[in-house]
């Protein structure tokens, strides 16, 4: 009982990455990665949907990127909390699968055949796989997790991550920023103090966070980043080079390259990139299935020249983060590198130059975030009272005012949880509702910021225009997620709020998806039960027939006819799909024949004994 309790309270840390995902936990010997039996831990964040309606996640799905490109979803993290226009602007031409929108909203959806899936649902499938691996490693169920997101994720991207967890049946106890998690993992074994910069360049996103560590308190001073900049973009640049070479040699337009070949080229580009972290020159053969395989080679110099503008962008972000933190570069004590893309020598060199010190690379950049998430999970489950994380909101948050101006209520890099209140009133007599448009961003006009949603205040008591005093409170919690509440001060009436998220799912939609997935799970269960019941029915019929065939069984003709009828009906039901009817029929038949079976046992024993004495068994069994 104690153990069961403990296991149901266990909280794991999950790094839900653009390229790979994995889980970790704090055990008696400190944080450790949860591995499969074969020792592997990284689960490629790829889901492949098979024509028979099932799906595979991870390595198996990644292998299908070439054979099943249009139904294999990679980098879904880049779609989280985005609408179609944003996806098209950032991801044009780089995804092998089709991104579209559904009829009544502008949200990005992935089209798999006839199905339209939200990025949240696809992320949930990845989370479910991570959970399965974790449960297998731990030997008990897992219900709660700390999940990491890029520090620069805005409200809607965080919400989407929380929703994905809910769909996967996981309670996301906390959404933690990836660079902050990495700092925790690095800080643990050294208990260092001072100013730390975490430079986190992953598969799809870039973050930089400046932290001040004092006596176990990790206080983020500032964060900056780009949620559409990462290793994927480097692959894309290499891919473009390969494509133009193909064009040169074949003279054909690259628009006609089939999706499967594009995926092949994408994988090759990634391989070349990785090779160039080890050597000055890389080359490989690309077999596109038509004509002879092509050899493509790339020098590190050429690769670095191609990616340089992107890496420079990350360095500019570092400067901004230092400015926002009010920290001169010479007061930075440590620099930590996180994310697979920090294996690129150019990245290491530029970071070292910028901060004039050698960055830390001791911990595996692919695993450090999961380890940090596990440490935070340990804090939340009460296992660690010494550590405290104080994180910030990455982007300013505010409302639309007259003329489309953006009025900031909470400025970026404010420590969360953070709260702001604002007074509103009505402009028309007896007005009972007000709409507030909430935005996140740094620009002066709301049209240049991201709309988070429309908050509709209802239930304002009818009063002359301008008389109601409605106090609206904006609260950003420790996950960086916004909630809005309102109160009319004269009447003390709590105005109710309907939230229409611009880029996310409403509560009802999430509930619906969860219900659907439970129903789907139930359908799966029903299918399994049907198979089992059919087997059972077949065995019952076979067993009974055998008994009836025994010449020594003392059955009356009436009994034989009745049993024959029942068996016929059972066989008929076993051929059908009605699980409930088949279950009932099996149960009834079982009860009826139980009595006969009891009788039969006596006779059977007698006959078996006789047979054994007289001859060898007639059947094989």
């Amino acid at each position, binding site marked *: 009982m104690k153990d069961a309790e403990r296991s149901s309270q266990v909280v794991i840390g999950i790094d839900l990455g653009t390229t790979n995902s994995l889980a970790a936990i704090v055990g008696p010997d400190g944080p450790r990665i949860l591995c499969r039996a074969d020792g592997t831990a990284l689960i490629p964040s790829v889901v492949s949907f098979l024509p028979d309606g099932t799906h595979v996640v991870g390595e198996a799905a990644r292998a299908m990127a070439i054979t099943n490109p249009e139904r294999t979803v990679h980098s879904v993290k880049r779609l989280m909390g985005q609408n179609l226009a944003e996806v098209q602007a950032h991801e044009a031409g780089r995804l092998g699968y089709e991104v579209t929108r559904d009829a009544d909203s502008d949200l990005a959806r992935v089209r798999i055949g006839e199905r339209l899936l939200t990025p949240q649902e696809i992320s949930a499938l990845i989370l479910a796989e991570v959970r399965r691996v974790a449960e297998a490693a731990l030997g008990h169920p897992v219900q709660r997790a700390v999940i990491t997101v890029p520090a620069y994720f805005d409200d809607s991207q965080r919400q989407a991550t929380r929703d994905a967890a809910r769909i996967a049946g996981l309670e996301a106890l906390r959404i933690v920023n990836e660079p902050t998690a990495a700092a925790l993992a690095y800080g643990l074994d050294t208990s260092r103090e001072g100013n730390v910069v975490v430079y986190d360049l992953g598969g799809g996103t870039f973050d930089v966070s400046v932290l001040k560590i004092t006596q176990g308190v990790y*206080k983020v001073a500032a964060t900056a980043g780009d949620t559409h900049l990462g290793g994927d973009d480097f692959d894309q640049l290499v891919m473009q080079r390969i494509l133009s070479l193909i064009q040169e040699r074949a003279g054909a337009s690259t628009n006609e390259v089939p999706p499967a070949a594009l995926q092949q080229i994408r994988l090759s580009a990634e391989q070349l990139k990785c090779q160039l972290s080890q050597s000055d020159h890389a080359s490989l053969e690309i077999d596109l299935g038509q004509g002879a395989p092509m050899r493509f080679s790339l020098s590190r110099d050429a690769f670095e020249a191609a990616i340089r503008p992107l890496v420079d962008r990350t360095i500019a972000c570092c400067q901004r983060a230092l400015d926002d933190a*009010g920290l001169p570069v010479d007061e930075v004590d440590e620099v930590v590198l996180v994310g697979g893309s920090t294996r690129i020598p150019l990245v290491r060199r530029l970071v070292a130059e910028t901060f004039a010190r050698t960055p830390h690379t001791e911990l595996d950049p692919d695993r450090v975030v999961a380890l940090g998430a596990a440490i935070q999970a340990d*804090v*939340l489950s*009460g296992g660690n009272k010494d550590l*405290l994380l104080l994180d910030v909101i990455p982007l300013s948050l505010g409302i639309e005012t007259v003329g489309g101006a953006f009025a900031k209520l909470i400025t970026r890099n404010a420590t*969360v949880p953070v*709260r702001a209140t604002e007074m509103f009133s009505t402009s028309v007599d007896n007005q009972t509702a007000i709409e507030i448009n909430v935005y996140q961003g740094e620009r002066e006009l709301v049209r240049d910021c991201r709309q988070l949603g429309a908050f509709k205040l209802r239930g304002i008591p009818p009063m002359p225009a301008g008389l109601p005093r409605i106090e609206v409170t904006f609260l950003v919690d*420790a996950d960086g997620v916004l909630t809005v509440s309102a109160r009319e001060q004269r009447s003390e009436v709590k105005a109710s709020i309907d939230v229409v998220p611009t880029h996310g799912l409403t509560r009802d939609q999430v509930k619906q998806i969860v219900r659907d997935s439970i129903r789907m799970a139930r359908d799966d269960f029903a299918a399994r039960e049907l198979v089992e019941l059919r087997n059972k029915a077949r065995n019952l019929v076979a067993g009974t027939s055998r008994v009836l065939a025994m010449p020594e069984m003392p059955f009356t003709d009436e009994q034989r006819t009745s049993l024959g009828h029942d068996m016929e009906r059972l066989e008929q039901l076993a051929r059908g799909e009605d699980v409930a009817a088949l279950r009932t029929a099996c149960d009834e038949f079982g009860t009826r024949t139980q009595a006969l079976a009891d009788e039969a046992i006596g006779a059977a024993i007698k006959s078996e004994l006789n047979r054994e004495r007289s001859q060898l068994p007639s059947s094989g069994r």
Partner: protein
Amino acid sequence: MAAARPSRSEAARPLRCPSCSGEAGSSVACLACGRILREPEGATLFDRLGLSADEVFDAQTAEARYLRISRILHPDHRASDAPDIQELALENTARLNEAWRTLSDVQLRHEYLLELYAPGSLERHKKLSPDFLLSAMETSEELEDARSSGCQETIRRIARESRQQIEARMHGVASACSATIGRIARDDHVKEAERPTRLLPFHEWNIEQIAVLLHQARVYRRILKDTGVRT
């Protein structure tokens, strides 16, 4: 922002913890017994950090306080508490963060102090002299020209000069504050709740001076920010 509204008259000092009846040390949590408190009406941002508005602000002491109270309050350390306690922890941590954000910034802290002692004075004395506005406007225009022509030398000079302007004003604010607030702090014969109202008219000229200096410092902070030059 009801609780954050500057007003010195209501909260009783020292703040007592209703649970252990010891001195709470903060209006949002009891440092003695670790209980989360419902903030009393009229508590100030200083009360949240358990500091006195009348004493010289020491950044290190204040930060240590902030982190200590954070450890007690933070939702991460309250994850297994009852939902209503968790909600209060969230609410109070937001209040604590608000206090630290305002008080750790030298400009915001002095603006808040001024409002605390002389409510409405920032608004009342926001008209700046034509001479000052003209000179600030000229600097702004010069900066704009330098930025469009890419003249780094001029930009750096403007940044340096703006910094000097800010420093001079904050120095003025500090000495004016010590003449006003410092005096209040030393005057033990005046009952705490009565201090501001009794002493303020006497120092009205100082209040105006502080308000104007703070407004001017703000103008130069904006110019400094526009230069994009790092500190």
